[in-house]
């Protein structure tokens, strides 16, 4: 593990569930690392696969999608589609031999402040183990 490495985790959080969950974690004064860079989206299905790839190639050490639990989507089915798209990107990463651990999808509801803090901590640790994203330094991408 590299010292003094602060990961950057680009996080696309659904407005209705995970983003609110993150807010709850904050108001409850739960600790979670500054590595999480939240971007609010209206639904996890708003996240086009190319967002994940762009974030990865731009040097994000991790990319997180947070959405409502299956069945709870504000738009009824958005997160099911998000799950399929995420599975495709992950599969593309795996078949290209890229570190698919740098992509994460997590279902966190608006009431799950503690879960958000836990996921943020655990994922940050996982990324710390993994180290800096090699794309950060690459100039040929």
């Amino acid at each position, binding site marked *: 593990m590299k010292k003094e490495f602060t990961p950057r985790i680009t996080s696309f959080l659904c407005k209705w569930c995970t983003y609110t969950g993150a807010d709850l974690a904050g108001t409850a004064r739960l600790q979670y690392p500054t590595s999480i860079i939240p971007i609010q989206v209206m639904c996890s299905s708003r996240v086009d*696969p*190319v967002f994940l*790839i*762009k974030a990865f*190639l731009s*040097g994000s050490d991790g990319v997180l999608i947070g*959405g409502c639990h*299956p*069945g709870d989507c504000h738009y009824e*089915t958005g997160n*099911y*589609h998000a*799950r*399929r*798209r*995420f*599975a*495709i*990107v*992950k*599969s*593309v990463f*795996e*078949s*290209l*031999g*890229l*570190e698919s651990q740098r992509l994460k*999808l*997590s*279902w966190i509801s608006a009431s799950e402040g503690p879960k958000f803090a836990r996921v943020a901590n655990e994922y940050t640790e996982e990324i710390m183990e993994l180290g800096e994203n*090699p*794309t*950060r*330094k*690459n*100039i*040929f*991408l």
Partner: protein
Amino acid sequence: MSSIVIDTSASRKVKELLRFLLDSGKIDAAVTMRKIPENNSYDLTLITDAPDLDEAVPVIPVMTVNAGQVLSSISTSGKKIAAVLKPCELRAFVELVKREQGSFENLLTISYTCGGVFPLELVKEGQIEELLPKYDKTISKGEVPINTRDTCRACEHFIPMNADITVSVSGECESGKGCVMYLNTEKAEEFTEGFGGERSEQKFDPSLFQKTLDARLAEKGKLFASITKDGPGLDGLLDLFGKCVGCHGCNSVCPICYCLLCDFESANFDYNLPYFEEYLSRRGALRLPPDTIFFHMGRLTHMSFSCVGCGMCSDVCPVGIPVAAVFKKTGEKTAALFDYVPGRDVEESIPVMVYKEEELSDIG
């Protein structure tokens, strides 16, 4: 469903059928490969008059353009059309129909057990004629012709899916003798009514192609292993796509990529100077034009599950990147997530349009 025994070469028999269909007015036009006598080359042609069929060579291991792609702009005309397609062209067309880019309604599809096609490189040099005898011999033995496209050698879907008429070319017959034309659908029976030839009740037997299938699968294993020879990861990816010149030729000949304006050519990925300045301040350098790897990875997520492995992309790449092999390999993985096979069934929705409540349990 019945079949017609072929007493001549498969290509000639298909040509006879097209002629019959045109003459009898059962179709208004035929889409088939044709020889261009003037320069020893081939092209895909839309033929409406029977005499113009003279130069047609329906069964030929050449693909100048994926016919599925071309068919999408013709099939909705309301005219009756018979199209001779390679299995991957037919599969590509099925994928396009799912995307509302074509219709089977007025189409009679004729396909054949495909031995693979030669790269355009060899076509332009007029070498096809010389290569054919050896090619025919190789496929008749159930072996894989050496100088065909890499994804053809690795293709296990050489038996047509969904064709109205399937012509067996390789396998049980040596380029012609003993080939059979299988009528798979009501439509096929209807169109061929009155067409001469000995009929039988023989059913298509895929097991006759087992040797070919085994050989192809072995080739596929080799091909897939070879594209990551420099090791996986970012370095391997850069070794593959690092020399891309950004012409997007792979995208424009891809039958699946039907978008008039690709996302990666759209204003979505135009950047302001501050973007470059920020990038520069972080890395000290960046590539211009940007987004070389991004384009290929993006395209992989957008369409790989529908990739039929036709190999057009590799053929048009000016710097020889094995695009098709990478897309085929990745596409098999992304399609397998949803038990999807591109081109298998026109009723099957493309994976990103549908979902199941219980699936992909390891995610999330």
